[in-house]
Every structure is written in C-alpha cells, then in structure tokens.
C-alpha cells in the first residue's frame, strides 16, 4: 500500500482520484466490517461527496500558477481516514461505544477534524471502541467487540481497537484514536501498526469526548512512522478552544524523519523487563534493543523507580476524572432517556443505569469513592503526589537519554473472554502505557516482530515533552531496518 505522501501526490497529479480512493476504502470497510466490526458508521454518501469536492478543487487549482495554487495547503488531499467514535465529526454519529448517547450526532467538528478536513482528507467513518474509551480489549463496546485482523478469536486491544484494526487491515492508511492510559499504543501493538500518543497539550482535545481530562490526548494510527508524521503535522498545535494546548512551535515532523539516529541515547529500565512479562515479548524487546544498538544508538540503563505504582495512581486519577466528566450524561440535553420515570431523580438514575455498561459504572463508582468525603486525601491526593514522583522519575531519566524503550504490552493479543471477569487483570495490560499519560510525555508503539502464533508485538518509545519528531525518527529508523513484512489474515 502507498504511503500517505505518495497517495496524496498521485491524487493531486491526476494519476488517481480522491473519489476512486474513497470508493476503494469504503468498499473495504463495508466488506471487512462483517468479520472485524471495526466501524460503527460508514459514511459512504458523505465521504464520496467530500472526495468529489476534493477532485474538483484539484482540477481547478491545477490550472492556476504555482504561487496562487491552494494545492500545497492540501497535504492530505484525498487521503481516506477513519476516526474513533468519541471524536466529534459533524454529520456523523458520536456514540463513544455507549448506548447512553443514543442517536447523538454532534453539531460541530473537533478541532483535529476541522484541520484534517481543511488539509483535504476524506473521513470515511467512525470506529468502534470500548465504551467511553474505558477498556483494553474492546469487549466493553455496547455494539460488540472489534476483532483482531491477525486472529479474529483475539482482542484488538483497546480502547481504540476499531481504528487500530482499520489501519492494520489496510482499509485506511491512518486513523485517529484517543489515548488516556494507552488506548492508542496498546491496540497499535496488538494489531501490528504504529500508534502515537502526543505530549499533553500538543493536539487539541476540543471535540474529543472527555474521559480523564488531565490524561486524554488524541493520537494517530498508521502503518508507517512517516504516515503518522504527516497526520500529526496537520492536527498538532495551539487551539484557543482548548486552554490546555500549549504555545509550542510545531516542527516539520517529516523533515526530521530521515535524520541519522547514530549517537542518540536510548534508556532501558531492566526492572520493567522482569516479572509478569511474557517470554516472547521479552525476547522481542531484547532483539529490538540489539537492532537499535546496530543502528548506532547508545543503550543506557535508566531507572523509573515509581513506574511500578503507575497502575494504582492511574486508576485513582482516571476514575476520579471520569466520575466527574460522565456526570453530564443525565438524559436531559441529548442522547438516551429512560422511559416513565416518576420524578427527575429517578430519571437520572434509571437513564444512567440503562445507558451505561458495567465497566463504565465500575469506574464511575470507583472515582466517586476516591473523591468522597473522608477518602479524598487517602486516595486522590496521595495519587497526585505519587504522580509528581513519577514525573520526577521521567525528568531524571531524560537527563540521561533521548528516549526510554519498553514493551508496549505485557503479552500479545489475548483471547476474547480471557480477562473479562477480572477487572484488575485487565487493568494490568496498561502497565507500560499509563506512565506516559500520568507524566504527560509522548509515546509511540512500533511493531517489532511476531510471536510464534503469528501475533504482533510492539515496542514502546517514550520521550521528553514535545519530542514527537525524535520518537518518529527512531520509529522510522526501526521500521526501515526491520520492516514488518507480514500481513494480517483479514486484509483489504
């Protein structure tokens, strides 16, 4: 499959068309959805109409002189993309994988979506996910789980499993997800694609349905690091609609991709390669460390002494923030409302009981508990203090290296049903990914091999604030040296 820049250039040069490209992506999405359940909505009509407009624009702009042509402002002209169903796209649904939003259609675009559309891309549909992005397997979607394209008896990871599967199966070259504790990187690892979570404040959260507001970031799935760079380039940067976006210059991510990695320092924490890590994942990570050594990077030891507490900190802070953010689903202003409640209070409670699934209720209750009178200091305040210690761990590590390398997940994709009755076991899938959200640093998952069963394994690179260019460069160097040539069983 073509890279995004090749695809875009062939559309702009007239070798192919945005309409033809959109048609192919829509056909693949419709056909493969029967086996993958990756899309909750496929917008054939809307996508073809946007593609047609792009083709017309290319035709009229091509006639103009280079200096007046708007084509350079369309870096993603005709590129089909998929978007997780918790990011608002006008004219499409936004269910967040939940019944409580009913037939909700947001009346506005997320800022990331506005920018992608302005860049000429064609959004073909909304992807399935764990309800309100809470889950690591997609089994918490109210609309049935996404299947892993490498083995449909296994989970695709979560929560952005639909976006990961759509990219892995070759339906679209890139997709958006959201990452609160690993929800982009973990499914990327399990589906054998690139998954990038930017620095907190790099990409606007305006129009991303809130889960844990101090942790959430929109992230990018792609097969190649260069494609992730092309999409991040468009969506990154300050947005006045999100006060937490930072005034930090957006570098040219594609320009820095091919820079030499020799002399860069990669930190490895031996403590993170110990107990609980699947032997095949450990072996793949050890091999990838050797690959980076061969590429001329220096491997140094780092210590993240508080990383072992990250899951405990995360499930206090994330659930506390979720319990507050999800208070808005009350059956009053939009979405589902339970019928025949005698009074307002009953209506709220019944709507939320019938509308939310078990995991969302568990997390709302856990968050309510840790914030409740008498427990706030013991749980929430304590967790915020340990979060400070974790941030200090990363600051110390990055004083000595350019990136920290870890596994993305402790195991390859597991079977449906394997962990569904044990929430804590499910939470431990996120052991390597939650640290980045707590510290606010960027992270990327890069495919680094297959298990004996043919399941993808991912390595994770974490970098200092605003180091996305460096992470993409390191990912690109790895993919160039060790491309994952295998394809999943279910593929367009």
């Amino acid at each position: 499959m073509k890279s995004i820049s090749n695809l875009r250039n062939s559309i702009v040069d007239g070798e192919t068309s945005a309409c033809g490209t959109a048609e192919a992506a829509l056909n693949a999405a419709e056909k493969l959805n029967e086996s993958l359940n990756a899309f909750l909505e496929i917008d054939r009509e809307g996508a073809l109409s946007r593609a047609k407009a792009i083709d017309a624009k290319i035709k009229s702009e091509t006639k103009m002189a280079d200096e007046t042509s708007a084509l350079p402002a369309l870096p993603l002209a005709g590129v089909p993309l998929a978007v997780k169903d918790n990011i608002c796209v006008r004219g499409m649904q936004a269910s967040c994988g939940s019944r409580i939003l009913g037939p909700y259609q947001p009346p506005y675009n997320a800022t990331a979506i506005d920018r992608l559309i302005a860049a000429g891309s064609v959004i073909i549909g909304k992807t399935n996910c764990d309800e309100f992005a809470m889950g690591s397997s997609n089994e918490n979607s109210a609309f049935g789980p996404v299947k892993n394209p490498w083995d449909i008896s296994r989970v695709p990871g979560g929560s952005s499993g639909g976006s990961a599967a759509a990219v892995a199966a070759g339906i679209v070259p890139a997709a958006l997800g959201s990452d609160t504790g690993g929800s982009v990187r973990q499914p990327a690892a399990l589906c054998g694609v690139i998954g990038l979570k930017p620095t907190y404040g790099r990409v606007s959260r305006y129009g991303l349905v809130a889960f844990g507001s101090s942790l959430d970031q929109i992230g990018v799935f792609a097969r190649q690091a260069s494609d992730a760079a092309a999409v991040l380039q468009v969506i990154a940067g300050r947005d006045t609609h999100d006060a937490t976006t930072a005034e930090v210059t957006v570098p040219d991510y594609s320009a820095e991709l091919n820079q030499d990695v020799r002399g860069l320092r990669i930190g490895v924490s031996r403590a993170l390669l110990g107990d609980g890590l699947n032997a095949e994942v450990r072996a793949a990570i050890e091999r990838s460390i050797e690959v980076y050594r061969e590429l001329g990077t220096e491997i140094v030891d780092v210590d993240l002494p508080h990383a072992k507490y990250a899951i405990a900190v995360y499930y206090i802070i994330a659930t506390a923030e979720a319990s507050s953010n999800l208070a808005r689903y009350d059956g009053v202003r939009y979405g589902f409302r339970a019928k025949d409640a005698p009074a307002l209070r009953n209506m709220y409670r019944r709507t939320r009981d019938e509308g939310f699934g078990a995991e969302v209720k568990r997390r709302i209750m856990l968050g309510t508990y840790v914030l409740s009178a008498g427990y706030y200091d013991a749980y929430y305040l304590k967790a915020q203090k340990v979060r400070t210690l974790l941030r200090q761990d990363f600051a110390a590590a990055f004083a000595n290296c350019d990136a920290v390398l870890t596994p993305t997940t402790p195991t390859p994709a597991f079977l449906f049903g394997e962990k569904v009755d044990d929430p804590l076991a499910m939470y431990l899938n996120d052991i390597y990914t939650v640290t980045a959200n707590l510290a606010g640093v960027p992270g990327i998952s890069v495919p680094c091999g297959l298990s004996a069963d043919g399941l993808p394994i991912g390595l994770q690179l974490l970098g200092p604030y605003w180091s996305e260019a460096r992470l993409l460069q390191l990912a690109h160097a790895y993919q160039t040296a060790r491309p994952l040539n295998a394809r999943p069983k279910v593929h367009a």
Partner: protein
Amino acid sequence: MPITEADIEKIAQLAHLEITDDERRLFAPQISEIVTYVEQLNAIDTSAVEPALGGLTPEGEQTVSSRRDEVQPSLGQGLALDQAPDAAAGHFRVPKVLG
C-alpha cells in the same frame, strides 16, 4: 479496605446510578480488590511531595489562555435543543423535580 454491598449502594447513590442487586453483588468484591490494590501507594512516603495538579507541561502552564470578554458565536437555541429527548417551547422538559 473491604467494600461492602452497603458501601456500593451508597456510592451508587452519590453517583446517580440505580444499580441492581446482581450488580451490587458483582461490584462489591471487584471494587474491593481494586481499592486494596491501589492502597499499595500507602507504602510510599509522600510527606514532602507536592501533588500534581492536572496534566500540564511547563510550557502548557506558561501558555496564556485568557481572551477578551467578548460575545462569540455559539450553537444557538435551535441546535442546542435539536437532540434533546424531550424539548418543548425552547426548553428541556424533564419529569417533575419533587416526587
């Protein structure tokens, strides 16, 4: 700390969730186990540590987000009510408040 079914009922009330008996029986041991797990944080001495406040980077903290207090375009009443389960006469209609 063990979480009882009575605790679950109290938490559900605080969270405006009407949960069933089955859910109460399911959630009590699960939430107990998670709370016991997170209590490992008690082993860390944090007496001299400032709590993190939100997720901002140093650059994010320095970014000025204030703007002039001027009216900006907004959704408008029509769109705001468009998807309400029960809209009436420019309002959101709800069941009676006291019942």
